[in-house]
């Protein structure tokens, strides 16, 4: 019986254009059998939330390297809440100082992946989370 594929939205919010990480994750998750939609660059939280609804995704992966995470993440979480998307798993990958992690998790970010994380770790995290 074919299982429903996990649907993931990979998004790059903010003005930063460094998309090496976002593209690698998009491809690694696709290779791991997930359905991946990549938003492209410079997405506002509004655009990401709308895309998440439209694409009916299970997971949103945000790539943020610019230091704007404390502004962008809470904005996105609030928008997702307004759209009734509280059950979507939101992950952040990028350069996030340890001091900011607790607040981001409190805002509803499920996990934060720091530089050097292997793609398998992310695949495993998502697979486990989707089983529960």
């Amino acid at each position, binding site marked *: 019986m074919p299982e429903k594929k996990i649907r993931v939205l990979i998004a790059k919010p903010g*003005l930063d254009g460094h998309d*090496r990480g976002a593209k*690698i994750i998009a491809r690694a998750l696709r290779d791991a059998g997930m359905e991946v939609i990549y938003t492209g660059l410079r997405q506002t939280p509004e655009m990401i939330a709308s895309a998440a609804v439209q694409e009916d995704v299970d997971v949103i992966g945000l790539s943020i390297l610019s*230091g*704007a995470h404390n502004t962008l993440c809470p904005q996105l979480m609030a928008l997702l809440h307004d759209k009734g998307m509280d059950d979507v798993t939101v992950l952040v990958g990028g350069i996030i100082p340890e001091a900011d992690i607790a607040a981001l998790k409190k805002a509803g970010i499920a996990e934060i992946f720091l*530089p050097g994380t292997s793609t398998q770790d992310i695949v495993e995290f998502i697979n486990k989370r989707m089983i529960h």
Partner: protein
Amino acid sequence: MGDSLRGDTQILAPGETSPGSRDASEREKAWEKNTLQPMLEKSPERQREFTTLSDHKIRRLYTQADLPNWNADRNIGLPGEPPYARGIHATMHRGRLWTMRQFAGFGAAEDTNQRFRYLLSQGQTGLSTAFDLPTLMGYDSDHALSEGEVGKCGVAISSLADMEVLFDQIPLANVTTSMTINSPAAVIWAMYLAVAEKQGADWKKISGTLQNDILKEYIAQKEYIYPPEPSMRLVIDTFEFAVKNTPKFNPISISGYHIREAGSTAIQELAFTLRDGLEYVEWGMRRGLDVDQFVPQLSFFFNAHSDFFEEVAKYRAARRIWHKAMVERYGSKSPRSWALRFHTQTAGCSLTAQQPYNNVVRTALQALAAVLGGTQSLHTNSLDEAWALPTEFAATIALRTQQIIAHETGVTNTVDPLGGSYFVEALTNEIERGAWDYIERIDAMGGMVAAIERGYPQREIAEASYRYQCELDKKEKIMVGVNDFVSEEKQLDILQIDDTVAHRQAERLSKLRAERSIDEVERRLNALRKAAEGKDNLMPYIFDAVKSYATLGEICDAMRVVFGTYEEVAIT
């Protein structure tokens, strides 16, 4: 095992090079049989195959047999002479050390001004400005899209007023300044020139470098505003303006750095950067500029990654390719156009967030490759840059690293100490061949703008970057502290950007908007808009607008209205 000694024939991907048929000497064959084979039988090598960081195959041993038909006079020449493999100056670092140019910028203009003055007081010999993302994208600090980004990745500059603060008490007549800005480069440069004018510095004498390399933005870093055509027009406008007004200023730094950071191989970095260079030359000539009039003002910027010899070979090959292209393709008559001058920055993407003090070592080795490769200026990354912009403590160690190489290691005592090494020369040849292969492919597509529109370099880089990640995941390539030799470490003290920056900037902007003559601003922005619709060089119009204290955002918007904006088709 012995088989790997022979160059095998295979289908090669672009950028790969054939080791060619190899004709080993009798002596070498005897060595293979009598010395090598018994050794391999007793103790096999650690890996079946050895490759560079970029997956370029490396042989066990390099000898004369790897340089068939190689002639030192023809292939590398002498320093300061074509084909410049050994460096562009006869005395290289014996005559003058490279410029130690640490990239810096954070917060508001006054914060960065302080760091600049500190770095100069510590023996740094040139300035290099990092701008924040809103500035890089042509938005003022108070624009909605700037929220959360003001002063974070660099200094926030929204108008000439900010630029005046940035260079306060720094005499632009005596210091060379590099500015890492691309899409809005013409605007930021106009602000810089306006500050120089106010200080009474002679434009003919001021020197520095504008990054202004839009092609690599489409390829790699993605900080573009306008579509390629009008963006290229702006770049050529700055060339034309520089030729006439600022003969010592480099209006462009054609950059491979970001291409490499996006995950390219060394050969791709070299090939795409030089093909970008050729594209600028062709557009300049099409504008009617004489090749030897503007090419001497073009400069380059490469990455210094961790594979030591691959990097050294890359710089040597770069000079040789540029010389050949200038002479053979464009009929250049001036040695000033032939000699490729470049800045180097150590590889940010090689820095690890884990065990960050190891980054000092990585950076030192990368910097050494750049020096031995003949760089003209160098930025060494700070140990904490996988986490944040550097603290003053970390930035000082990075600068000291260069001073140690310059004054303690002795590598500057002679010119091109690696020249003539079988390995270095063979690798230089292979990297050069690999780069030409890519360059010719891009020629066949109709040039770099056409190749970018097809997504060609973007796709090649994405492939290489994914391949490397897979190798890391499988531990086929090792990053110390990341996928091997892991240990726990306590978090570094990192630079926190003061949250008041955005407020300070917003207040300064509203004060500026209230105090300036809005009629004058409007008049000059209209003139710019009109000129953008025509064919005039836009630099004088931008300069006028800047001097009326029109903001960066307003000036970029004036051109957005005419040029439109660019959206890429994302490749994953």
